[in-house]
């Protein structure tokens, strides 16, 4: 019985390893095609990999392929997806700047306040998985301390250390919850069509407030049926049909 299960585990590991290798191989092949100027072929492979793997490098390269094929909206979407996974990267920022030249609407991005920038910096340094592992380790260590405390009675050093650990674990837990929430929430999107009306409410009967064009990056505020409330800056906001935008 034990032998059988060991073989099964080994087999699963082998399959997982092989599939990872095949994605890496395909990624390398697509990169080579890109360098040879075969952008369409390269894009096909990248998009195939994207079905299974979400990676900032992959998104970046897909964005490049779309740019080379003059599909600028798609290029911007993928650059922003890449930025979402890698918030601070000069190449991504540079390419977003380049692709933005192709769009009519040029709304300057609002300046990020110090605290948000600080949070973003932390996000770029500490991945969600890293935070998850830290949280797990903290909980395990805290448990050990609790055991020691209960078993051995009141030791002052142990109490202080356990208290500090407890507060720290609580803080990390809250940050973990924040990061998980952020990870699951798709808050930004890109307008995919030209000459789109931003309305005062969800529905065709509402007043047209602004006209926006493809390529504009917007923040999603809330959704109602097939309508989404978006804002492009502090002064430009309104409701738009969900199909007119692509979530990042």
């Amino acid at each position, binding site marked *: 019985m034990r032998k059988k299960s060991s073989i099964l585990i080994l087999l699963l590991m082998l399959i997982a390893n092989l599939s990872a290798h095949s994605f890496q191989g395909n990624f390398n092949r697509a990169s080579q095609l890109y360098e040879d100027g075969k952008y369409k072929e390269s894009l096909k492979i990248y998009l195939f990999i994207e079905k299974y793997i979400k990676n900032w*490098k992959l998104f970046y390269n897909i964005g490049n392929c779309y740019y080379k094929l003059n599909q600028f909206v798609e290029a911007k979407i993928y650059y922003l997806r890449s930025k979402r996974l890698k918030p601070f990267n000069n190449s991504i920022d540079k390419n977003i700047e380049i692709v933005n030249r192709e769009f009519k609407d040029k709304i300057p991005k609002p300046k990020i306040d110090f605290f948000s920038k600080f949070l973003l910096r932390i996000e770029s340094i500490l991945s969600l998985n890293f935070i*998850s592992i830290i949280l797990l380790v903290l909980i395990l260590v805290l448990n050990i301390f609790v055991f020691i405390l*209960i078993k051995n009675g009141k030791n002052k050093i142990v109490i202080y250390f356990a208290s500090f650990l407890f507060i720290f674990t609580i803080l990390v837990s809250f940050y973990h919850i924040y990061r998980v929430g952020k990870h699951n929430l798709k808050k930004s999107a890109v307008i995919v069509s030209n000459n789109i009306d931003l309305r005062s409410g969800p529905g065709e009967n509402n007043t047209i407030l602004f006209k926006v064009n493809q390529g504009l990056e917007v923040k999603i505020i809330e959704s109602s049926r097939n309508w989404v409330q978006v804002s492009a800056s502090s002064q430009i906001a309104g409701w738009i049909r969900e199909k007119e935008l692509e979530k990042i």
Partner: protein
Amino acid sequence: MVKIRTALILFLFYKALFCADIEFKASINSDKIGIDDVLIYKITFKGIDNPIQPDISYISNFRVIQTSKSSEYRFINGRSSFYTSFDFFLQPLSTGKLKLPPVSYKYKDKEYKTESFAIEVAKGSTKPYTPPKKKSRSIFDFDDDSFSSPFDYDQRQKKQKIDIKLQSFVSKNNVVVGEKIIYKVMLYTQNRIASINMLSNQSFPGFWQEWYPVPRSIDGNVKQINDKIYQVYEIRKAALFPTKSGELYIPALKFELSLSDDSFSFFSSPRRVFRFAPAVKINVNDLPENAKNLSVGNFRFNVSSDKHEININDILTLKLEIKGNGNIKILDIPEFKSNNYFKVYPSKITRSYDYKEDKLTGTIYAEIPISFKKKGVISFPVLEFKYYEPLKGKIITKDSHPIIVKVVGEREMQEGILTLPRSDIVKKGEDIDFIKKGKIYNQDECYYNSTFFKIFLIIPFVLNILFIIKKFIFDNIISKNKILNKKKLINKTIKRLNKVSNYEDVYIILEGYLKEKSGFGLSEINVENIKELFRKFKINDYDTGVFIRMKSESESSKFSPHKKSAVELRKNLKLLIEVLKRVDTKVK
């Protein structure tokens, strides 16, 4: 002189005021050509100042073998317009019906598009080139204005005599393939000229050409020829580079000249005359065999580096410069190749021209980004640039100075990060030319979603809770329950008795039991007290006797030399356990 200059300035001013219309058109010289022929694809801009050469690199059916740019003024219905044309000399790549797709151009947020053309390409050539017939005549003979009607001519004769002449000049008549020739068209006139428009095609078969920009105003000289005073203007100039040997001809160029004579009313349309700049024959000799693939001219060559000490993975920019007198546009730069020590990235190449009096000098400036893979002192290979200098008639070799770079640092080569973070090169699409390589992994695969994470998070909580339950609920509440304690005591005693291997251990276990059960101190546990206790709880004499006997025997057995056998011990213990069970049910 002053009058002509004033007229020209007025003309330019007039143009500047009225050239608001914008036009973007394309035309072809023929819709049926042979595969050996060259198609001239002309893109004309009207009313756009200094337009950039349209990008036609996406045209796949044709190969661009040459481009040229020209500008001119045109008067149409009394209004002047400034035209700029780009001539693309296209070579078809296959026979059949080929399509020239439309070309688009963005100007002031507006996109302009040309029409598309269908070209029929046959085998061979449909238009064999024939050199123009040589005319042997004096350059100061007047052309007849054969394009004007006899009536116009008579009218003009009455009003004013026209004395306008065009002449072609070349800097050299005997050259080698690739050597630069400066070609000029000079205007000799006794009349005042309002505008000049070149009607002939600017393309000369057998030459690669670079036209000088058309000046906005022309300064003239005065020359006396055959007792006549002429104003002399240089109206067109080009640098020509023969591409093949033999007798080549610069064809006669036809010009349309608008007169700006006093005898004409300001509001009437200006008089136009047509003149030809005569054809010129050039003898082109072959290059020496060992110089066939080399650039021709006179050049300076230099390679420098922006840094001499660098970290692994940092970018160093090698600056390569070729400057001189020759056809810079078709000159290839020496190639740097990646090796085990460094990686060479695509370079940014800038070609610029300097149009001087009778010289056309140019510069190729290449910025070659290089990153290093290994530590150490790396000496770049010396680059060699060879060219043929026609004046000296020999091949000149120029070597770059050796460049030594010290590569330091412990940083690993980041595989795949090909973007040049500190490159000075900034141009559209540059970063897009670099992709990200290296290992990829699924960033969407979050541990917090996995079963392992959940299990590892839950286990400590469960253990904690169980421990707390045990510590605070079981130990403090449940374990203090009398019924449970009673059961616990007898079970513990039986368990201990079952483990006994020496008979002398039995009395200790029994004393322990009695101590817990009755609350006696150890010193109080004796035969009298045991009897008293058992009597109190109505335990029969047999059980009391067995209990006391076993205890006493066990106590004294530690001094006895005769030990009980294992079978005997088991038998006694079995009896004792049965007695103890009965006692335990009665003793409260």
